[in-house]
């Protein structure tokens, strides 16, 4: 499915009917996500943060999906979807503090960068193991219905995750219990170095939904309006009691898997170049320009705003001290048991500072 045509006009058959301001808002969020991404990438190269996993080229899939969900709906992230969290208003400073694992990091430097979460924004916690979040989205949806709440759950995962144990279990349970769960598969072409064609013999990942008799849709993930529409349809089905939907968002990871990766080893520059020409930002930009709602000046201004915003956050983050040492021993259990009290005391006693 596509909405924004090559020439920037909308396919009337699929036009979601968003106001141009709403579309501009989507575009601005995508730009902001990319600028933040870009800055973090540089910071990592400069050795100022240890790691970053970005969403270059996947902004439409991420922001479009988040925007199609309602405030009360849950987002269960993989690890590339901070754009969705920012869309929901998560403070950028908090995110950057987390990237630095400093005293401002909500989790006191307990996880690698980009492992965000926020109960206030109904955004679950990123964890590295692939696939483990998918069944959580089923349980969350099951609970929402059990409590009689008008909520659905959108869970993000990649093409690679469709080979995981958790995907199989979650798809099956969601279909059997008809939970209000949206399986949002970012098919960005690769699981690190493995192209999707080698991950499965299936021609399309939507074929996998058939195994569970789950409705599936496949959309151009670089077309933010197509993404919005597909996810909105799935949300309506879920909240209308129609059960889960599998949505395949066809996109491409323009950058490395993470800052630790060198994609030149496993894919050609031509391939990447061809996808650069399908940049999701250009796509929607062309449309809003045509509508007269956006132009180069507005664009330059907005980019400057975003750039200054992230720079300011970085400056602030770099002034913050590391988290207090005792934070390492908290939150293992609701109450700190005796053995952790002792270990904490032991740790403070021998802290590295003293020795060297």
């Amino acid at each position: 499915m596509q909405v924004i045509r090559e020439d920037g006009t909308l396919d009337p058959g699929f036009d979601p009917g968003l106001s141009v301001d709403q579309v501009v808002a989507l575009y601005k969020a995508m730009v902001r996500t990319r600028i933040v991404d870009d800055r973090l990438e540089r910071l990592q190269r400069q050795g100022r943060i240890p790691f970053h996993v970005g969403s270059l080229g996947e902004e439409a899939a991420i922001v479009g999906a988040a925007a199609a969900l309602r405030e009360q709906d849950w987002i269960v992230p993989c690890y590339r979807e901070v754009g969705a969290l920012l869309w929901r208003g998560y403070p950028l400073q908090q995110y950057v503090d987390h990237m630095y694992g400093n005293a401002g990091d909500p989790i006191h430097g307990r996880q690698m960068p980009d492992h965000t979460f926020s109960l206030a924004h109904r955004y679950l916690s990123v964890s590295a193991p692939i696939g483990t979040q998918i069944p959580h989205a089923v349980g969350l949806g099951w609970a929402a219905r059990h409590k009689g709440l008008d909520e659905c759950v959108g869970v993000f995962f990649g093409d690679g995750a469709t080979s995981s144990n958790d995907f199989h279990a979650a798809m099956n349970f969601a279909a059997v219990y008809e939970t209000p769960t949206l399986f949002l598969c970012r098919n960005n072409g690769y699981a690190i170095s493995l192209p999707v064609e080698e991950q499965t013999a299936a021609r399309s990942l939507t074929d996998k939904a058939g195994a569970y008799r789950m409705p599936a849709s496949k959309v151009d993930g670089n077309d933010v309006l197509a993404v919005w529409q597909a996810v909105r349809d799935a949300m309506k089905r879920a909240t209308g009691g129609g059960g889960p939907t599998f949505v395949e968002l066809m996109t491409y990871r323009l950058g490395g898997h993470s800052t630790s990766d060198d994609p030149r080893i496993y894919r050609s520059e031509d391939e990447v170049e061809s996808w650069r020409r399908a940049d999701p930002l250009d796509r929607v930009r062309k449309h809003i320009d045509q509508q007269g709602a956006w132009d180069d000046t507005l664009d330059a201004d907005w980019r400057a705003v975003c750039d200054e915003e992230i720079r300011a956050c970085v400056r602030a983050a770099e002034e913050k001290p590391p988290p207090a040492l005792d934070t390492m021993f908290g939150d293992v259990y609701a109450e700190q048991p005796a053995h952790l009290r002792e270990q904490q005391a032991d740790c403070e006693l021998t802290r590295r500072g003293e020795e060297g």
Partner: protein
Amino acid sequence: MPEMNLVQAIQQGLATAMRQDPDVVVMGEDVGRLGGVFRVTQGLRDEFGAGRVLDTPLSETGILGTAVGMALHGMRPVSEIQFADFIYPGFDQLVSEASKYRYRTAGEFHVPMVVRTPYGGGIRGGQYHSQSPESLFIHTAGLKVVCPSNPYDAKGLLLSAIHDDDPVVFFEPKRVYRAVKMDVPEEAYEIPLSEAKVVRPGADVTCVAWGAMLYEAYAAAESVSSEDIDVEVLDLRTLWPLDLDAIVQSVKKTGRLVVVHEAPKTCGYGGELVALVTERAFLHLEAPPRRVTGWDTPFPLTHEHEYLPLQHRIVPALRETARY
């Protein structure tokens, strides 16, 4: 007070918790219509409906992963894993997710779930219906591990586990399921986690056990009493977080320790307990702490009574430790 066996007491505990709180649900393979292969959940589906007693597809990943999601939304799912031996397909959800969610969200999210599972040998279950994998979960920071030995404790500990805000793995000694009966109150009551119990006071040797082996330890203690060996028997009840003081106090008095468990010896919980006691009570030790455990082989069938650390193996260990 009615007499109940372990199965009935746990069933009662579940029913009690479900009556108190609509967000308590039971899920697992065959727990509904069948009432569980050991009939522990019998009757729950009739009382609470299929909407709160879920017969799940055959997937431990699904059972535990879905339960984590339910718990993240404030529910208190009680999952049954049909045999502890079959928890491994869902291991990742406990070790990577349930146990770490609170830590990695600084308490913003937490996972109040209970995983009930029958463990241990002595029922001719062989390799895959007899295992005792508790040490794998004790090693995993963020999990609590409980193992009752009798009906009264089982109901009280189960209610504490369900009301606890952290994930709890609740090991049920299947060998004891119908073997022991005692008075169990109908009403709700809790036994606090992390409190061991002295089931037999003694002066000469401290014997630590839990679950089904508690009875073997007790019988062994009784049998050596005729030889003037006075054994203090401790029932841990909660394996982790541990009531270490109870053990250390006892050993400071007796100077001797014997730990009994069904799991294989190597990297079983006994090694940890011996190490902890040696660290804390070194100068009080009058004999090397001993472990009487399952052997470092897969769990056998025909010779399971030679595999298990039963009375006939505990007695000589107590004797040698006392006379060391």
